[in-house]
């Protein structure tokens, strides 16, 4: 089997896997990173979102070969030495989850959205996250959490 090298949460890994094996399964089964969730396997729900070179990607439809040479960030790697990120703090503060199964994907999707659009309107949040399904469905709270996260990020930046 071919060996693929890539970085996950800042740590280099090399994985021996069939080229078409989904990145999602490699993360969960080989690297013990189960924070990334399976929701559909068809690119429709974004529970499996990871950041690949900073871009949100559906890891269930990303063959492991496409990750070769890239930097992958999973939910486990989002918070750094400084503790929880503003998006994570905002989701906690707003309790923007019910079962919480969609949450890791939502948090990463929201983090990427705020990276592109630091002060999104409500409309931009809905559009930006429309690929994510929350079946529970906590959409109103999630929108509020992303708005709060935008404010927290700005505060964090102005404190620097």
């Amino acid at each position: 089997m071919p060996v693929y090298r890539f970085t996950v949460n800042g740590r280099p890994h090399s994985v021996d896997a069939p080229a078409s094996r989904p990145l999602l399964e490699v993360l969960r089964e080989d690297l013990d990173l189960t924070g990334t969730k399976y929701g559909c396997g068809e690119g429709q729900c974004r529970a499996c979102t990871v950041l690949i070179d900073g871009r949100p990607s559906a890891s269930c439809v990303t063959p492991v070969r496409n990750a070769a040479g890239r930097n992958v960030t999973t939910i486990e790697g989002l918070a750094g030495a400084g503790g929880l990120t503003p998006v994570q703090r905002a989701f906690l503060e707003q309790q923007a989850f019910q079962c919480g199964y969609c949450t890791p994907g939502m948090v990463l999707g929201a983090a990427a959205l705020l990276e592109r659009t630091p002060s999104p309107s409500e409309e931009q949040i809905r559009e930006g996250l429309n690929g994510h399904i929350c079946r529970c469905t906590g959409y109103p709270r999630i929108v509020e959490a992303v708005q709060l996260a935008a404010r927290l990020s700005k505060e964090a930046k102005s404190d620097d």
Partner: protein
Amino acid sequence: MTESDPRQELDRFELREADPYHFELDRREFLGAGLLLTLFVAPEAAAQGSGIEARLHLGEDGTVTVLSGKIEEGQGARAEIAMAAAEELGVTLAEVRVVLGDTGRVPNDGITAGSRTTPSTIPAVRRACAAARSILTQSGHKSYAEMAKSGAKIAGSTPENVALKPVPEWRILGKSQPRPDSEGLVTGEHKFPSDIRRPGMLYGAVLRPPSYGAKLESLDLAPARKMAGVVAVRDGEFAGCAAPTSFEARQAVEAMGGGARWSSSKSATSSENLYEYLKRHQGRVRDNLKGEPAAAAGKRLKAEYRCAYIQHAPMEPRAAVAEWEDGRLTVWTGTSNPFSVRDALARAFSLNPALVRVFVPDFGGGFGGKHTGEAAIEAARLAKEAGKPVSLRWTRAEEFAWAYFRPAALIEVEAALEGGRITGWDFANFNSGAAALESPYRLAHTRHRYVECESPLRPGSYRALASTANNFAREAFMDELAAEAGQDPLEFRLAHLENERIRAVLEAAAERFGWRKRVAEKRPGRGVGLACGTEKNSVVAACAEVEIDAKTGAVRLVEIVQAYECGKILNPGNLRQQVEGCILMGLGAALRERIEFAGGQVTNGSFARYRVPRFADVPKIELVLLDRPDLEPIGAGETPILVVAPAMANAYFHATGQRARTLPLAAETAQVRRG
């Protein structure tokens, strides 16, 4: 004998049979050093061994652990139980731990369903904790930790008629409290059932029949067994593989499945001829006749309503990890019914239930769809064969095809109308169930029937059961009757309503929405509608505005104002989430969700084809949550779903002048367009 002699304690319990509590003192250390109290909170039932049992562990480290057979699937049970315990014990939330759904440790609280946690588990926990508090006071110890350390000598009398904290003294209940341990949800650390890993664990995959009812006639396991590291098994109708990765497990199942022979079983029933099928396959009838509706005077109206099969589609599909050790079976899985899954496993493997332990980690949604343990049994069969732990996670396609469905409904309703009042009412539900079948309106001559039918798809419970279908038909028909009587739908309902609580939510929703003004306005492509209902003792009403796309005819929910009352509110933040969740889930079922099937297969079993609500579908939502401190708290995870579909259907009529009598509305409106 000294006062603290345990034998004396025993005597005391035997002498005082009428005591509402029975304590079993146990210093089992599985929760850390401390004292385990088991309290039976329904003395009459406890005598027959079926009382509500509450278990508390007082840790020497100062934590108090509540053990409950309830589970957490996002509905808020964990927070509610912690809050109830902290309140009555007089400790902070941080000092309370809640252990849920571990059949090895918790009492059997039965299934987590029917909104029973709030009205039944919470009072039991509160009473047990109030009793513990009173024991503490009488013991003279300063804290639970000190009492636990003292060696479990509980002296003095046990509390009789223990008093619960009255609402005005609440510090924790009644205020929004977060879900305990929720940090793990935002960091990815929380382990859902599908995330559990065990040493040496393999991943499983199951060979599914090509269609419902197809039987496995022959299967060669060799192609799978040839693959490195693969374990393959066939046992009767069950066949599956386990392998070091789920990728390999799927490949192995494919490899052996290619040569499998199945008895063909092609059903001619489909989502297209479903309702005719139900009419032709009737079974037992429950008939409740009061008066003579057939003879009622006045003009007669009749209508037929239909609700499609739909699915829960929780974000986490069924998943289980099974592990065998020395003839004992341990399973981690997501189910609302841990003890019944334990018993099902025991039956499947001819084990004493005491040898089976089921853990239910907080899991990824259920909505009534995870009352069973299919994945648990399948994982256990694979693990037995492999001699290693096996994790089996259903795919989304499996979940759509092999989980159960909210049953489709066909509802026939007929009424007589005279002088602007309903004089007779005849309502029949075919196939979907009897929940909220009876009308909450004041009606003189009524007939209510539930007709069981042969269901072409596997039926099961779903949030609020059949009350969604029954309330949809009833409330849509009430609108038709109001129109026939030339009355405003709000006034027409109020004229037939005695139930003060329903009247209150109906008026609250109408008031906040500005109903009287908005129903008089005519705006092209827009319409407003309302509905009310009650089930499981809570009451709800909604006013909705919809918009119809002039070109496509597509319906969009623009705004919904929902008023809801469920007695005394325990956790307002969580209540808001539950109500919003119900509104949006109800929106999906009202608008688009419909299982399509033909030839014994689900034909739209993916999120691409079975469209659930997304961010773009979220309307403007306003909630009016009526708090009733004078009433007992009532479970709130289901009833708020009742009014969304009928309010939307009624708004559709207001906008178009056409009645929409089929759910989902998208199917109906497409038909209206076609012709």
